[in-house]
């Protein structure tokens, strides 16, 4: 069947063509199309019956006709050839080279869809990764095997934050990072792609990076394949070659929009904001490929970047993402406008795996309590700031005024830091105590009395 070209298209519209009279085509199989000018396109069977086969064409159906379109069913799913040589290479969304070098030749070709991991085979992520960013390490720490997205918005420095994490991430006790990086960009601008490429170059890790790029002006349907190809490469590096893989994907919003575009063409019933009902399952297929496996040395840690449409965290894309990922780092416009970098809005940020990766045996014994206290004190401080905006700072009580000062110092000194500033977790915790010492000890009930005695600098004593 692989060698037969069919010319039986009966209809074509917006990225989909229907082929008549091709019996026995496997669902999900890859398709090669040749148009009237002899150009090749790729596609995928999304519905198969003896009398009609529905094919999704990655490059779209522009300039196709029904009479001079030849279709070949390749009888296998989309596969990515993998070998050690993928490190340092740049591919397009479908896994073909875009760096001018020859394609990867390997007998080992993997189905990009992967297979779901058996929950019984998973190992729980516990190893603390130090990112050198206080707002993350101190309050929303990352662990090896976690998926922790950055929720951002147009114009916010999410790319710089992601690049800083890639540069600085390491396990405690390790001198330099032993990560390899899989970087996937879909719907990203050429400028964004170049920014990452240069950032990897500058930090000298380019030969440890695999890039999969489907940029904003490239075929939309190919975007659905890009994260899958990237994660197939990541799984190979992590679970076959024992690497610790950091996967950075940007921008998940562009991915979800591509999914919606295709769903509308297929006539799927829309759920919220026109996104198909299976958006959750589809995103989960991608995010859940992060993790660790028992008896395997490598791991996949995932940092997807997504821009929240109109900064709305309840929009379906961030919303469903938040239900799948193990927390989120939220960047905020207000802090960014005040010149705070990285503008991490800590209250809606969260790391679900933090509870098991910090504290005694991992970082420092006071870490969980300090984090909890910072959250509580800052929440209270913001309440006071809201009050001050109404009644004026002069009307505040002395205690409240202290909170106001705490809020400002916390934002400037703790959240804010340099783009090249790599703080150890101990520096972060000491800094936290410096700030907490601005508040009276009796206001700090999330930390224990012993911790107060040891670390509090006695602002009122």
């Amino acid at each position, binding site marked *: 069947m692989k060698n037969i070209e069919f010319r039986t298209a009966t209809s074509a519209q917006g990225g989909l063509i229907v082929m008549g009279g091709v019996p026995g085509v496997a669902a999900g199989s890859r398709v090669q199309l040749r148009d009237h000018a002899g150009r090749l396109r790729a596609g995928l069977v999304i519905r198969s019956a003896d009398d009609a086969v529905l094919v999704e064409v990655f490059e779209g159906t522009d300039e196709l006709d029904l009479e001079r379109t030849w279709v070949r069913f390749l009888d296998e799913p989309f596969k990515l050839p993998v070998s050690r040589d993928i490190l340092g290479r740049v591919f397009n969304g479908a896994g073909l080279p875009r760096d001018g070098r020859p394609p990867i030749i390997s007998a080992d070709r993997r189905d990009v869809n992967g297979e779901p991991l058996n*929950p019984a085979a998973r190992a729980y*992520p516990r190893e603390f990764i130090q990112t050198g960013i206080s707002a993350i390490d101190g309050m929303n720490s990352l662990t090896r095997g976690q998926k922790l997205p950055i929720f951002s918005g147009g114009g916010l420095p999410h790319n710089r934050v992601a690049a800083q994490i890639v540069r600085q991430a390491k396990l405690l006790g390790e001198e330099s990072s032993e990560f390899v990086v899989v970087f996937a960009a879909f719907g990203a601008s050429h400028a964004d792609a170049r920014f990452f490429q240069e950032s990897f170059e500058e930090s000298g890790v380019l030969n440890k990076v695999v890039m999969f790029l489907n940029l904003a002006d490239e075929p939309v349907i190919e975007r659905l394949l890009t994260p899958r190809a990237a994660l197939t490469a990541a799984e190979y590096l992590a679970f076959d070659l024992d690497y610790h893989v950091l996967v950075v994907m940007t921008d998940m919003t562009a991915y979800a929009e591509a999914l919606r575009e295709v769903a509308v063409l297929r006539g799927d019933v829309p759920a919220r904001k026109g996104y198909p009902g299976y958006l959750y399952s589809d995103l989960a297929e991608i995010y859940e490929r992060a993790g660790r496996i028992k008896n395997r040395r490598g791991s996949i840690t995932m940092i997807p970047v997504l821009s929240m449409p109109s900064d709305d965290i309840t929009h379906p894309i961030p919303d469903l993402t938040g239900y799948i990922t193990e927390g989120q780092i939220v960047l905020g416009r207000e802090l960014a406008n005040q010149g705070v970098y990285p503008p991490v809005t800590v209250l809606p940020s969260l790391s679900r795996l933090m509870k098991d990766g910090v504290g005694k045996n991992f970082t420092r014994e006071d870490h969980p309590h300090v984090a909890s206290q910072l959250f509580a004190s800052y929440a209270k401080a913001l309440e006071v700031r809201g009050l001050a905006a109404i009644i004026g700072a002069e009307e505040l009580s002395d205690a409240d005024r202290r909170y106001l000062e705490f809020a400002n110092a916390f934002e400037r000194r703790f959240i804010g830091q340099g783009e090249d500033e790599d703080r150890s977790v101990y520096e972060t915790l000491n800094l936290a105590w410096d700030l907490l010492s601005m508040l009276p000890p009796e206001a700090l009930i999330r930390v224990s009395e012993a911790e107060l005695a040891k670390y509090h600098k006695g602002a009122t004593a």
Partner: protein
Amino acid sequence: MGKILEINGPLVKLELPETVIGEQVRVGRIGLVGEVIGRDGNTALAQLYEDTAGLRPGEVAEGLGWPLSVELGPGLLNAIFDGVQRPLNAVWEQSGDRMARGVSVPSLPRDKRWHFVPDEHRRAGASLAGGDILGTVQETESILHRILTPPLLHGELLELAPEGDYTIEEVIGRVKLADGRIEKLRLFHRWPVRTPRPFKRRDHAVQPLLTGQRILDTFYPLLKGGKAAIPGPFGAGKTMLQQQIARWCNAEIVIYVGCGERGNELTDVLEFMPELKDPHTGRPLMERTLLVANTSNMPVVAREASVYVGITLAEYFRDQGLDVVMVADSTSRWAEALREVAGRLGQMPVEEGYPAYLGSRLAAFYERAGRVETLAGGHGSVTLIGAVSPPGGDFSEPVTSHTKEIIQTFWALSKELADARHYPSVDWLESFSGYVGSAAKWWAENIDPNWENERAAALDLLAASEELQRIVNLVGVEALSSEQRWTLEAAGLIKEGLLQQSATDEIDSFASPEKQFALLSAMLEIFRQGMKLVKLGAPARKLIQMPLLAQARRWKSQHSSDQIDQLKVKIAAIPGEFEKLMLEYEQTSA
């Protein structure tokens, strides 16, 4: 033998006459399993539990002759199953780290021998009815597994095996049915998951399900046999709260259904459960726990089936006379699976794409909870706790709003509280419980006759403080009278000293009802003593600086449930603290 006509995502159209709706089918060369959901002429429409990639029109299909059923017998506890009851550990051994398709592994281990002790009242020649107890197997140290007759079987017991070790497939007895046929009995039987298991009659729920969580037990109680929902946006601590319930509740069996949730969360449960002890029996928690895991990246149709598999397992243990809690995380993912299949069937969507039967399916599902008199004559209960994941935290969306009408206890989680790291983030204004009256009886008899009043007093205080907080937000705290300031302060004390509870703190994680009540009365005692002073003219400013207030906030994590006496000493000292302050005040003002 039939054949495949069309493949569309998880739906497959088959040429397969004479199949029954609900029947299991095996499809394709790799043998994917699914169930028939529609018939049209000679064709049948089936939804498959596994990914359909690679299937081709023309491949074989066959009907298996039975609906989706589960195996019920020894070997269930301590296990982890997928959405169609495949044992994940055995699947792992057989097919490796990834879920291979078409793997068929029996749900219960076939080679393991169980020590069966026949019930001494069973005599050959006596009649035997469905649901009767044939004997017992000590499955784990804390759980005695009763071997039940299949619910629909009636007849005369011809023989029953003597005490000894048997595998679940060995015949342990024979029954002569009314029509003369002879039926063999084994240690296990099958039951279709979409049919509720029969019982004699429903009974009133009387006992509270104690979870050790103060905001739940003291403020919004749930009864054994009751229905509860936990709605909350992401990051509100839904999973944490459910794990706390699974960990500490006083049920005999806990069934945790991870329906379309994170893989790592299940790993977390799998890793921490064996390390923890059941606070009521002292045995490892895993011995009473059973997991059904269909993570979000596993096929969507099996996700829809998983909650039915879970509830059927729950009913089976209920029929043995046990109190069972089933936690379903999350019913929203189940509803979405329903929506996805409905969408592919081209059914008319009503709200947000959900099919019109969403409400009735949800209601029918929750109705499988309850306390019943079992066929064997004892009492058992299934308590159902469903998590709801409303998109964007909007409680008016279809799944939350339908669920809210069905359940009796509503533990609403709030994003605002979670953002301020107030855990558990159960919102005391949005939540409700229809079981307070029944629970009050239990608390009055077992803990303190004053429970209902004290609970109401604390809730009044919280409601009053909400009003005051609004004023403060407008004009500042200085605008309040001394009495109002003290009310606000006392409400803060209740929030931080009582409602907030740390799941990670060893002492605070679980609170016995005695400890819960002691803390509740302690906080109220401070409020009342202070109010007395304020009414005598002492300024609230002075009271707020009392070290007692900061100390009382720590009591919850200083005294475990076994150290109530120490707590009571501290409570007894409260009036003295205020008298001291009063004396000081009188001296300075004199």
